[in-house]
């Protein structure tokens, strides 16, 4: 039985090896093409993880055709400028609005002169002035979509509760998750006494991050939670809520740690104070890095298909991408859980009440 299996395995292995060596042989003359594909993939990955002013599903680089739709651009530059991003023609054209000229360069809008010149510094970043860009970008658009989705889902769940104690419809699936957040995240970390106040935030942040992560895994090529701005905003809200709910005890633990000798108190105060800022910073970086890395790895592996351009490499990469996608599904949930859990933990620190004042 075992030898039979071994023979089979070897046959397949040899077959694969020969096929791939054939394929490699064919590709020798296509070295330049390969390098081009690599550069193209790099750019595609870079563009994928970036926010954008248009929603593009497919892009044919040979014909230069884009399949998708443009989003509105809203600029504040000594007055409001509103126009459609389609006017940029994917960065090829300069847009004139109320006497100002704007150019789209690497998904960012810069103010230029009429001919659209950009002054680049040594890092390759333009030094041109950037107008305040309040555009409805791809991410803003997706945030709105997720918001509407959440309102429909959870509003529906709330409505189904009006009829009785048993939830009906799609919301039913989310009810145990809501209970999990309450019973396993909020109550153990914040405490029975204060947890109610924080439930709305924890639920919103959990589902927002989870849904954003999941949308990131769809072929819509959106990257919401893998964007530093989004995670910064979320972490900042956690930070503000934590500081505003901090009681006397919380501040005392930061500036004048009870139960340690006074020289230690002086040493500990700045460390604790830095910790206050490090906590939300870690929240921000953790979510950003996890999701972004997931996207980059997944996109790169999918990109490998175009580099191999053969059946073996392609199918193996496909398999790898498939396995990674499943892993990313788990990461999507896990990161939402971690963000919510840590937020709850920080709120818990802020509202904690010590009866054992001298026990430290």
């Amino acid at each position: 039985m075992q030898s039979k299996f071994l023979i089979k395995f070897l046959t397949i292995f040899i077959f694969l090896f020969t096929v791939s060596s054939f394929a490699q042989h064919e590709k020798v003359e296509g070295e330049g093409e390969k390098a081009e594909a690599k550069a193209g993939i790099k750019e595609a990955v870079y563009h994928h993880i970036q926010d954008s002013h248009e929603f593009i599903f497919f892009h044919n680089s040979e014909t230069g055709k884009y399949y998708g739709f443009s989003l509105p651009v809203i600029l504040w530059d000594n007055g409001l400028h509103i126009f459609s991003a389609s006017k940029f023609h994917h960065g090829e054209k300069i847009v004139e609005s109320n006497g100002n000229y704007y150019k789209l360069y690497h998904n960012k809008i810069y103010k230029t002169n009429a001919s659209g010149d950009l002054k680049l510094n040594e890092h390759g970043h333009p030094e041109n002035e950037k107008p305040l860009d309040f555009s409805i970008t791809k991410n803003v658009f997706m945030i709105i979509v997720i918001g509407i989705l959440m309102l429909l889902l959870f509003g529906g769940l709330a409505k189904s509760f009006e009829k009785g104690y048993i939830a009906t419809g799609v919301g039913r699936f989310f009810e145990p998750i809501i209970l999990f957040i309450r019973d396993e995240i909020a109550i153990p970390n914040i405490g029975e006494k204060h947890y109610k106040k924080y439930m709305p935030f924890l639920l919103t942040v959990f589902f927002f991050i989870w849904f954003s992560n999941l949308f990131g895994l769809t072929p819509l090529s959106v990257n919401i939670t893998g964007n530093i701005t989004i995670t910064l905003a979320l972490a900042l809200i956690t930070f503000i809520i934590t500081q505003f709910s901090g009681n006397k005890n919380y501040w005392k633990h930061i500036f004048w740690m009870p139960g340690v000798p006074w020289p230690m108190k002086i040493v500990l105060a700045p460390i604790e104070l830095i910790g206050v800022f490090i906590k939300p910073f870690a929240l921000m970086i953790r979510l950003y890095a996890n999701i972004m890395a997931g996207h980059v790895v997944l996109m790169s592996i999918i990109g490998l298909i175009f580099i191999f351009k053969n059946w073996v490499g392609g199918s193996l990469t496909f398999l790898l991408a498939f396995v990674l996608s499943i892993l990313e599904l788990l990461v999507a949930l896990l990161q939402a859980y971690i963000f919510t859990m840590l937020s709850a933990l920080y709120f818990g620190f802020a509202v904690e009440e010590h009866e054992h004042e001298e026990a430290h």
Partner: protein
Amino acid sequence: MDKLINDFSFGLFFWQILLFILLLWLLTKYAWKPILDAVNSREEGIKEALEQAEKAREEMAELKASNEKILKEARAEREAMLKEARIIKDKLIAEAKDEAKIQANNMIEMAKNSIELEKQSAITDLKNHVAELSVEIAEKVIKKELSAKDQQLNLIKKMLDEATLK
């Protein structure tokens, strides 16, 4: 770090904060509050129902116990009553028997007495009758033979004495 700062977009930040807070507010109002309230009230309802069921079960058990007790008592009472009735019955029968005996004895006694009395009176009557008869006989004798009166009387007397009824 440089890349991170470069990636930061104020517009997106503004929208994210605004939209997130709006979403938080809307969801709190239209979803989380009603959902959590419903879940809470459901949990309380379940708890209450369980408590009530427990209480009902306890009451049931109590009721059953008391029922059994009452049944037991009733049975004991019935037993006691039956026993008493039997005793009373036996006593009544015995009493009736005794009384009947006494009555019968009394009646027999009375009958005996009256028989005796009747007998005595019959004997007396007969004696008198015989005496009268004797006198009549004597008179007839006397009328025929007045000669020896004394002798005659003695003879009668003698005859009467001999004729004493036993």
